């Protein structure tokens, strides 16, 4: 075990996979000497050279499109899109190429690639640099969608993503980059895609949360515990495949469900979780499913507004109190 930040854990995952497999390479804007806009790639260009840590021009369409071509021919690209809000630019390459190539060719083609994208608000970066776009990809068959909330998960999931034979969209939350945690050193430490993690056990209410909301839910849980309320916090970790069993088991125990994410609410991943439970766990529910999300609005710039916009721990606390 080492104490690493989330960003460091991601970097170590990439370094280990690049050492293990010479077909793994990195590309993206300013991932080389600049070390990545959020410092995630850091010194990797010094360790692996410019051939395997490739600085691209501003060319998201070609980044993703060429990742598809590289993946189809025997490489395992890890491409970085500087902000998850820019994923609209290469959307066609993700949606019509990466995601469908295997199916359209009748299983002939494999596209083992990872697309890393910093997600989320909270740094005053306004509407175009604070986006959370995971719901789009949840809706695209053929993709896997990963979203770790701790340094250890970040490392184990990224390594699994690189080893997976399918395209993986890998979300990272900007605010989490500096969070520290214990991370296994074992070079074969991986976390399987499709397995949720119960981050905290509790009997009174289930909170399913993603990304930074896992942190906020755990903060809320601490405070609520002081008042004798025990919430169970589940992090799906991979949105696709989604581990519905873990969620349904928990709801069976608690009878109450809150789904929390930083997304704008309408049409979000929380809608999907809600729909799954409304189908398969309806009679487990003692109360309506509550979703805690950002409002259906772009992210405002002003810190005064952004604070209101982001669904923080207080919102979870008051929602839980309304329900228990």
């Amino acid at each position, binding site marked *: 075990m080492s104490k690493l930040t989330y960003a460091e854990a991601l970097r170590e995952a990439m370094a280990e996979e690049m050492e293990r497999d*010479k077909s793994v390479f990195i590309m993206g804007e300013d991932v080389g000497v600049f070390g990545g806009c959020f410092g995630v790639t850091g010194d990797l260009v010094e360790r692996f050279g410019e051939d395997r840590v*490739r600085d691209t021009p501003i060319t998201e369409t070609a980044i993703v499109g060429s990742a598809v071509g590289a993946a189809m021919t025997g*490489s395992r690209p890890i491409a970085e899109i500087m902000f998850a809000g820019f994923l609209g630019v290469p959307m066609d390459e993700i949606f*019509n190429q990466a995601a469908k190539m295997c*199916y359209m060719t009748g*299983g002939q083609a494999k596209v083992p690639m990872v697309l890393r994208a910093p997600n989320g608000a909270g740094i005053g970066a306004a509407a175009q640099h604070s986006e959370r776009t995971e719901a789009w990809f949840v809706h695209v068959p053929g993709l896997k969608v990963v979203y770790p909330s701790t340094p250890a998960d970040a490392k184990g999931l990224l390594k699994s993503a690189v080893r997976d034979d399918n395209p993986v969209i890998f979300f990272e939350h900007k605010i989490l980059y500096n969070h520290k945690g214990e991370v296994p050193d074992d070079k074969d430490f991986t976390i399987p895609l499709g397995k949720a993690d119960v981050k905290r056990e509790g009997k009174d209410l289930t909170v399913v949360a993603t990304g930074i909301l896992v942190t906020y839910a755990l903060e809320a849980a601490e405070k609520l515990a002081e008042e004798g309320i025990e919430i169970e916090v589940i992090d799906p970790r991979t949105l696709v495949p989604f581990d519905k069993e873990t969620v349904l088991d928990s709801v069976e125990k608690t009878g109450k469900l809150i789904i929390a994410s930083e997304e704008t609410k309408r049409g979000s991943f929380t809608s999907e979780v809600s729909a799954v439970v409304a189908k398969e766990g309806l009679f487990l529910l003692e109360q309506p499913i509550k979703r805690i999300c950002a409002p259906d609005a772009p992210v405002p710039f002003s810190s005064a507004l952004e604070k209101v916009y982001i669904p923080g721990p207080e919102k979870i606390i008051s929602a839980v109190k309304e329900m228990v």
Partner: protein
Amino acid sequence: MKESKDKMIQMLEDMMVIREFESTVQKHFAEGEIPGFVHLYLGEEAVAVGACNALEEKDYITSTHRGHGHLLARGGDVNKMMAEIFGKATGYNKGKGGSMHIADVSLGILGANGIVGAGLPIAAGSGITSQILDTGAVTLCFFGDGASNRGTFHEAINLASIWNLPVVFVCENNMYAISMPQYRSDGRKGQNIKDVSDRAVAYGISGVTVDGNDVMAVNEAVTEAVKKARNGGGPSLVECKTYRHRGHFEGDPTVYRSDEELEEWKKKDPISRFKNLLKDQELLDDAEYDELKEKVEARIKEAVDFSQNSPDPDPSEVTTDVYYGEGV
């Protein structure tokens, strides 16, 4: 000389296979046996054949919505191709892809593509693999004049240029993108330049325009570009001017072009031109040609029989192959 004769006859045969294959698809589409959209390669045979014959086995190509010719020129199995177009389980893609997505990945075909211009970045990526794994493979990227107006053209060629990737970008300029003329001195046009190859300047790479109905000219230009790419000289742009004999897709009434224009181009038909050239050079006589034609017709007929007698895919196939390895 012997080698060159064999190669020339081979290229003629390749073109004839495409011609016969496409004419047959046309017929069965009209008869309602083939669903969806089909975009035929009739009239453009010299481009695929000239270009693919410049490649080695380890090389790659990216194809387009008008891709039958590319796959055939690359050696695709006519049975599996026809069966795919008929939507049968025995098709290359198990019937899941159809005309627009037909591909043999084992022949280095990185997908035919329904998205215009999508192949260019994919080709660049294949070039990255050549560099990183040092495979020596060159990737040949087919795309249309219409595709050259998409951002993917710009971004992919720029990337290939700055990284010196071993990719040859082959523009099939058949004068139209559906109803939009590539260039005209006045009126609607896709771009304000006569030759797509002029765009090479924007990326600091070499660009040439050749007669796309002259299979030897195409082969020569692409061979040179492939050699350059393989030797570390980076990407090039080769524009081949050609014309499609049919509408954009089967069913297109082609209101946007004149019969005269079509007739002019039919006079430049790549197959009769090449056949006549071979006859003039006494490399082929009428009897040999007729024999070739019979052989080709029999092959395609067999492909139709094979397809018609093949089963539909099993309903369970709807949800396999969404992820790799699942469909096996």
